[in-house]
């Protein structure tokens, strides 16, 4: 198709150009300027240390992201000795004294995950490569958490997960450099089951609507296995597309079945829409075989409750933490009020559970560095593994060494019938003690992963 004219001149020119092109990169491989050896990635130089807060600022979880960022800013303020100190006074480890971390003033950089794993990794890499962040925290979905956790493992920095509920984060995708304070799907199931049995009886038929992605699968599995263990029967499980906004066509078959409980394994906008549809279809007034029909939402969040409005009245779900814990259930949950007070003073409203977990993660990291006496990731990992602490709002808590998951009480809440204001939408039903939500590290729902070795990046 092409007629080629080879000329001697052309061949010579081509050869010279190709040769020059090939030779160019080799100039750089021989470069002898090597950086000062520090022993690990982004060892803090000078009088400051940089943390990276990677939260969704756009996309479906932007509200959670904004609240997380507020909490991070508050945590940095407290670490640097500004403000009222928040949980620093109630924290059982008193290593932190408000002079930054090991005398270095804490600075931070922020990024937008857009709730996309690609964008989240790009943003985290820019924090690590450009801004010299020694720790990355935040995130508001499991896909992002898993992606960024793996990145931090490769790069040799610590990842303190924000809001991520899927079992995988500390299950099949767990990493030595990653830590999760938030609870997970299994714990939701284990915490809800006894309370569901007490409230609705052990002879129930459940119908599951599940968001068609990883978090949905693990949550459905967790709720199914724990409710079936106490005698419930699962009538049907239906996957719904993540982008679905109208769930009428999924709710209608529920009316045809003989189910008397609907479990909505949905989060965010999905949950707001499916719950609203379910209520519109009159499921709350329905009776099946003499039993009142009930709806369950495994993972509750204040921000979602706000979106669903009055439809959440009377609906059960689980939470990692609630700002009313200490007031209603006493000293066991100390730290809660200290945090709520300083957060409220600064921003004018109570914090969400996303804000709480991010604040606590930042403090836990700073404390681990101080106790280890080094920013070296492996030293931090060692300090956090098996660390038992109290006074951070969740009662006595353990950072388990086997999977870097926190074990603590789980709060079961119910939507209020008559909320007084938009921040007080749920009431605490009960708290499931930590023993009931603890599982062995090799539990089948968490199988298939290994922590690996901690990585310093050097």
């Amino acid at each position, binding site marked *: 198709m092409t007629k080629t004219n080879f000329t001697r001149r052309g061949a010579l020119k081509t050869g010279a150009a190709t040769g020059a092109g090939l030779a160019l990169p080799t100039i750089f491989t021989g470069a002898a300027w090597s950086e000062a050896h520090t022993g690990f990635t982004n060892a803090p130089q000078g009088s400051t240390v940089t943390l990276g807060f990677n939260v969704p600022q756009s996309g479906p979880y932007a509200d959670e992201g904004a609240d997380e960022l507020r909490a991070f800013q508050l945590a940095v303020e407290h670490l640097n000795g500004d403000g009222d100190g928040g949980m620093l006074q109630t924290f059982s480890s008193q290593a932190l004294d408000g002079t930054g971390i090991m005398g270095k003033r804490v600075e931070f950089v922020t990024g*937008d995950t857009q709730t996309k794993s690609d964008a989240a990794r790009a943003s985290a890499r820019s924090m690590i490569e450009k801004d010299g962040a020694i720790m990355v925290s935040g995130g508001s979905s499991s896909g992002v958490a898993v992606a960024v956790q793996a990145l931090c*493992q490769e790069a040799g920095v610590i990842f303190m997960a924000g809001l991520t509920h899927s079992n995988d984060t500390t299950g099949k995708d767990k990493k030595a450099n990653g830590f999760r304070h938030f609870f997970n799907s299994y714990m939701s199931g284990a915490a809800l089951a006894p309370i569901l049995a007490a409230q609705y009886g052990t002879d129930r038929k459940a119908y599951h609507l599940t968001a068609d992605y990883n978090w949905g699968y693990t949550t459905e599995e967790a709720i199914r296995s724990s409710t079936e263990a106490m005698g419930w029967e699962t009538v049907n499980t239906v996957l719904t597309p993540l982008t679905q906004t109208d769930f009428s066509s999924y709710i209608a078959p529920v009316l045809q079945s003989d189910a008397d409980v609907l479990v909505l394994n949905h989060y965010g906008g999905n949950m707001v829409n499916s719950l609203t549809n379910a209520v519109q279809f009159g499921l709350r007034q329905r009776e099946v075989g003499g039993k009142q029909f009930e709806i369950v939402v495994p993972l509750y969040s204040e921000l979602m409750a706000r979106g669903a409005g009055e439809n959440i009245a009377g609906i059960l779900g689980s939470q990692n933490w609630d700002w009313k814990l200490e007031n209603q259930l006493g000293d066991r949950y100390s730290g809660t009020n200290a945090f709520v007070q300083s957060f409220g003073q600064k921003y004018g409203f109570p914090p969400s559970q996303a804000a709480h977990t991010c604040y606590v993660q930042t403090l836990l990291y700073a404390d681990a560095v101080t106790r280890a006496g080094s920013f070296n990731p492996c030293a931090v990992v060692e300090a956090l593994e098996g660390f038992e602490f109290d006074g951070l709002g969740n009662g006595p808590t353990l950072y388990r060494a086997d999977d870097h998951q926190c074990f603590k009480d789980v709060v079961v809440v119910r939507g209020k019938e008559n909320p007084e204001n938009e921040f007080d939408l749920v009431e605490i039903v009960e708290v499931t003690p930590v023993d009931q939500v603890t599982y062995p590290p090799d539990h089948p729902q968490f199988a298939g992963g290994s922590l690996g070795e901690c990585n310093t990046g050097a």
Partner: protein
Amino acid sequence: MTDQTQQTATVTQPRPRTRSSGGILGLTKKDFGLLVLVAILTIFAPVILNPFPAGSAMAQFNAGYPDLMQRFVIFGIFAIGFNILFGLTGYLSFGHAAFLGVGSYAGIWSMKLLTLNVIPAILVSVIVAGLFSLIVGFISLRRSGIYFSILTLAFAMMSYALAYSVLTPITGGETGLQLRASDPRIFGGELMPGMTPRATLFGMQMQDSTDLRFGAWTFTLNTGYYIAGIVLLVAFYLSIRIFRSPFGMMLRAVKSNQNRLNYTGLSPKPYTLAAFVISGMYAGLAGGLLVAMDTQVGAERMFWTASGEVVLMTILGGAGTLIGPILGAGFIKYFENIVSTINKSTLESWFAFMPDGLQDAFVAVIYPFVGKGWHLTLGLLFMLVVIFLPGGLVQGGSKLATVFRRDRKGGGVEDDAAAQRQAREE
């Protein structure tokens, strides 16, 4: 493609200057100059993109860190490929991210199952994306114009939905795919449990970097970036050759008047399909490079916004021009990664020298446009470019060049006129 090929040869014979002039690498002097320019930009990007000293307040605007430089280059390749379809044939594909995503998944499976070497991974990406684009193209190209765009968009969203949920065993669903030490690799030996698998090229690791320090300045030279850079140069060279070839001429003919082409007895279908597959393979190449540089893939890579992004890149830079798509890609990625990280406290520190009230006012005015508002700023710029520079940034560049060269030559319009007059005189 026998008789059509002969036709092509006859069509283009009157304009043989591109090949028979015996230029370097078979390029004209001007095109070779362009290639050299891109090569120089690529080689010195770590220096050019880091104009501010590391500790200074302006360091916020430095873009010379490995991740972003890799993205500049990779999305440059993606946009070059897209431009071969859109710029030459005028077919606006709204689903090109699907090929990028498919290439990425193929690449990571190659690294999971074959070897950690990036070359097989990239080859597999290109081939799989090529096959996928052959199927999509064969169906979508039955229609043109808006219907074609909608069809490609539908395919891309289908791929996204499949990857996100139904195909979770293959794609990892929401959490995506990553390399693991336990992957059953055929070549390349066993990894100790606990070791982190990393993409390599004959022992060189993609994330290896050397820092050059000159006083306060730090320049990071990254292995992965230079490998991607070499691929960019090859891709750019190929695109110049395609633009200047008889085949490229046929694609332009499709764009200018498809009916006339039909009346001359030529079927445009094989040409458009070939262009579609070529640009799909470019997208696959970009996808393969993405996983080679950062060994992870998520389904969001195929979302329609990602497809829209490459359209923006191409139009912003200048559709149908050679270097435009690369400029557009760099522009958008810069905004996404740099402007989005400017937060309120950064702004406050910039305006700290002002009195309190004035500082607050400045921050309040600028804040909506940076940080999470980067989309807004990009949108405004895009509007300005489309309204005032319909030819994209390339047109802006040539307008600027005209200003500086006024003494020597007139504007582009006069150039054309001069050429026509010359032709008449001959």
